[in-house]
Each structure stands twice: as structure tokens, then as C-alpha cells.
């Protein structure tokens, strides 16, 4: 009898060990079976890819422009420098308000209707900030100064310097406007001196002059 009791105890122990092994195996299944996301597949990167796909879709710009504009704004708020090259071709993509579609309507202004609002790529590039400046310089250097594309790029440069100034420590000796307007003009003048062609040099110089004399800022479009 002691022997059978011993065997029974061993059997129980064996069952417990088997049970524990099975439990461990069951618990391990999710870890073994589930493919872990790669470090790149963070929620932010997934969102970014979706946003980029949205703004790259020319059909959506026609069928659901609001969605495209929201995606542009979101990329700007994420300060996604990788989106700059996708935003530059959209500089002239504009938000159409009801009165733009039907001139007989009055203007019910639930936003400011400023240039960054009318042209969402300006807003997004301004939110991205300084890293967007070289791409904008290329647009100004390569476009007819009277073209909407060039005017929007110049407007974006102007707003970027305003944003840079606003996020810094104010200089009590100078008014804010004096500082950032001249900074923007100086930047374009410098870009003009380094321009690859005489034509680009002249266009950038003209842009710097406009900023210096604060032209066009009221109605760049």
C-alpha cells in the first residue's frame, strides 16, 4: 500500500508537471504566433503613411478635398519633414469656400480666410517650419514671380519666419515685425547669392525685395 500510495503521488506530480507545461505552452502561443510589429510600424508611422497616401491621391483632391486638407494639416502638425516634397506640388491646391463657388453668397467667415487657410500646403509647410525653407527657395527660384505657385511659396517663407520668431524669445529692443520681416528678406537675399542660375538669382532677389518692402502680403493670390 505505501508503494501504491507513492505511485499515486508520483502520478499526481507528473500530471501537475504536465498541466503546468501545457499552461506555459498555452500562454506562450500568443507570443510565438503573433508577429511582432517592426520598430518602424509605430502608430505614428502608420498614421503618417495613411496621410501621405491621402495627399498623393489626385482623385481625392476632387472627390474629398476636405479629407486631403485635413491630412495636410495633420502632417504639418506632426512636423513631418518627410512630407515636404509631397506638399510642395500642392502649394496652389486651395480651399474653396461657398462664396468662391457661388459669388452671389455672402462671406460667412468661421475662419480667418488668410493665405495659410486658403492654401493648406502653406499652413502645413509653415507648421513644419525651417526645414521647409530650401524647398520653397527652389520653387521661388524656378517659377515666374507672378505665378500663384511663386506667390504661395513666398507667403510660406514669410509665415515660417514669423513662426520662428514667435517661438523664440522676443527682443525687447526691436518690434516683432521689424525682426522677422527683415530676417525673411535676408534669408532670401542670401539664397539669391547662392542661386545656381542668373534667372533663379533674379527671382529670389525680387522675392527678397518684396519681403523687404512688405509687398503682396495682404493679398498674395
Amino acid at each position, binding site marked *: 500500500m505505501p508503494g501504491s500510495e507513492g505511485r499515486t503521488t508520483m502520478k499526481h506530480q507528473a500530471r501537475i508537471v504536465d498541466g503546468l507545461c501545457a499552461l506555459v505552452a498555452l500562454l506562450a502561443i500568443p507570443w510565438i504566433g503573433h508577429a511582432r510589429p517592426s520598430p518602424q510600424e509605430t502608430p505614428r508611422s502608420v498614421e503618417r503613411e495613411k496621410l501621405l497616401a491621402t495627399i498623393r491621391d489626385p482623385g481625392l483632391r476632387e472627390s474629398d478635398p476636405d479629407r486631403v486638407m485635413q491630412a495636410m*494639416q495633420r502632417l*504639418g*502638425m506632426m512636423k513631418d519633414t518627410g512630407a515636404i516634397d509631397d506638399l510642395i506640388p500642392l502649394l496652389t491646391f486651395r480651399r474653396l469656400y*461657398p*462664396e468662391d463657388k457661388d*459669388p*452671389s*453668397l*455672402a*462671406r*460667412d*467667415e*468661421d*475662419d*480667418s*480666410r*488668410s*493665405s*495659410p*487657410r486658403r492654401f493648406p500646403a502653406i*499652413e502645413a509647410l*509653415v*507648421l513644419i517650419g525651417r526645414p521647409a525653407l530650401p524647398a520653397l527657395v527652389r520653387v521661388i527660384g524656378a517659377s515666374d514671380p507672378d505665378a500663384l505657385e511663386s506667390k504661395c511659396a513666398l507667403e510660406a517663407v514669410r*509665415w515660417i519666419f*514669423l*513662426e520662428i*520668431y*514667435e*517661438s523664440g524669445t*522676443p527682443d525687447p529692443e526691436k518690434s*516683432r*515685425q521689424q525682426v*522677422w520681416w527683415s530676417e525673411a528678406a535676408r534669408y532670401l537675399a542670401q539664397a539669391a547669392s547662392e542661386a545656381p542660375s542668373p534667372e533663379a538669382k533674379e527671382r529670389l532677389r525680387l522675392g527678397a525685395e518684396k519681403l523687404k518692402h512688405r509687398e503682396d*502680403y*495682404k*493679398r*498674395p493670390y
Partner: protein
Amino acid sequence: MKGALAMNSIQETETERPRWRSFVSTLQRAAVVLALALCTALPSYAFSWYSGAAVGSDGTVYGWGVTDVTTYSMYHVAYVWVTLTSPKGRQCGPVYASWQNSARGDVALTFDPSDFGTYFVQSTNKGFCHAGGGWIVNGSSGAQTTVPYVTLTLRTGNNNTVSTDNDKREAYYQELNTYILGYFRSGGSADHVWRTAVEIVGQVTPNTYTGTFTFHRTIVAQRVYHDTVELTQYRKDNVADGVEPLLEDLNPQSGGSNGKIYDLDAPGFGSAPSDPPGYIYRKRVNFNQWVTLPDGVTQVSNNLLWYSRLSIVTSTNGDQAQQDIPNDNQAATGSTKITWNFQ
């Protein structure tokens, strides 16, 4: 005569006795009424139990639970158990309190810079009546607050200008060609129309918080009138208002603002080029504004209701202010009637 007098005397006596009884009876009734009046005049209490939560200026979260079973005619005992739980699971409590008639328990969690989100207070509330020998309250209550917490207020009009520690002060100037808040016709790069401009101020607790936020605003209701007749094409109900990040200062430490964030808005209205002179437009809008963490979901502020009232009249020199209705052409905290004349 004597007989008659006697008779009269008897009659008088007989008639006086019922009057006396009547007087006593009236006195008794008055006493009852007076007693009832006194009884009802005694302070009477409804039992109550509740919880509360708040954030101190240093980021400490305070919670409390209260059970109130006060009465003057019975012997009541109040009990409360309170627990405060943080988003990360830190807990204070349950704290127990018991006292005659009313009991309050207090809990607190100190500021933890890695523990942001919603803090919950949960209370168990009980009250016992020794005269009746039973529980008279057996309930629970809860409350919640957030860390950080943002208290929203509105600045407008009265010669106010955009706050100097608002990072977007210059952007506002660029768009509207002024720093003034309130009612004006804007210049700048925005459309040149009459507006009621406001600055929404969010005071962040704790004021040392360095994270960022997201502003949200909905148009609760909007109506536009051609003088007295509604133009239904401009009607809006419960729709999201446009987000303008270039007019939002979401950094509570920028510009030396020590825990303030800002949003700027300037709802306006401008006539159509084809409108004849003398054409009157009236716009009435109610807004609701709040703040969330950057997740866009966790609300960390009060709901700020504010409104805009605006009337313009066209002229050969462009739109002019229409001032025929008292208290028109302003923005303020609260809600407005969205009728043409606020009636």
C-alpha cells in the same frame, strides 16, 4: 321693564357663553396651525452623498467624499469610504470617516510628472438611524478630474488686446492688421470684414506643465438673417469649427506665460459683391470650446460656452456696422438667443 331687562340679561349671558367657547375653539385651532407652522419652519434636510475632485496649483490631486444624513429628531450616524486612483494606478485610500449626522473623507495624490490623464474618486456612502435601527443611506458616488487641468476663460472687447505672452499675437496681427479684440472691421491678409474677435485663455494646472494640448470648438448653433428673415443656407447646428493651428499657442511655457495656452478666433461676416446698398445681415452663433490632451480624446478642461452677435449693413463704401439692436455686435461668455433681435 325689569323683567325685560332680566330677560335681556339672560339672553346676553346665553349669547356670551357661545362666543367664549368660540374664542377658545379658535384659539385651539390657531395653536394647532401655529404648531404646524413652527414644525414646518424648522430646518429640514434631505440626505445627500457625493464625491468631488480638484487639482491644486502644484499638481496635487485632491478628492473627497461626503455623506450627510443630518436630522434634529433622530440620532443618525454617517459613514464614508473614499479612494482616489490615478491613470497609472496609484491609489490613496480607502480613507474611512464616520461622525454623527455628517462625515467627510479626504484623499490626495501628489504630482507625478509621468502620471497624466483622468483621476477617479470613488466613495461608498452610508447612513445609519439608531432610532429606526436601520440603514437610511446605502449608496456610492464618484467624481473625476484630470492632470493637467485647464481652466478656460474668454477675453474680448473693452479695449482688450491679444495678450503679450500669447505666441500668436503677431500672427493675429498679420491676419487682421490689429491686436484689438472685440468688434471691428479687419484688415490684414484675412478678408476685410466685421468681426467679433476673442482670445480663449487656458490656465494650466500645474502651471509648470510642459506638455501640449489640442483645442476643440464646435458651432452649437448658428443663424444668419437678412434683417428679420432667416437665410437658411447659413444655418449650422453642432458642427466642428475650423482648426487654425497658426492662431493657437499650445505651449504653456512659451513667451513667459507660466502655464497659459491660447486660442484666437474672430468670427465675421461680409456681404456679397452683388448685394444692394442698405442690405442688412445679422449673424448669431453659439460656440462650445474645450481642450484635450494631444490624443484628441481625453478632455482636460471645462466646456467654455461663448457667443458672437454681429449685424452689418451694406453701403457704397463697403459694409458698415448695423447698431439698431441693443447689445448686438459683441462676443461674450455664455449663450445668446439666435433670433434676429434676441427676443
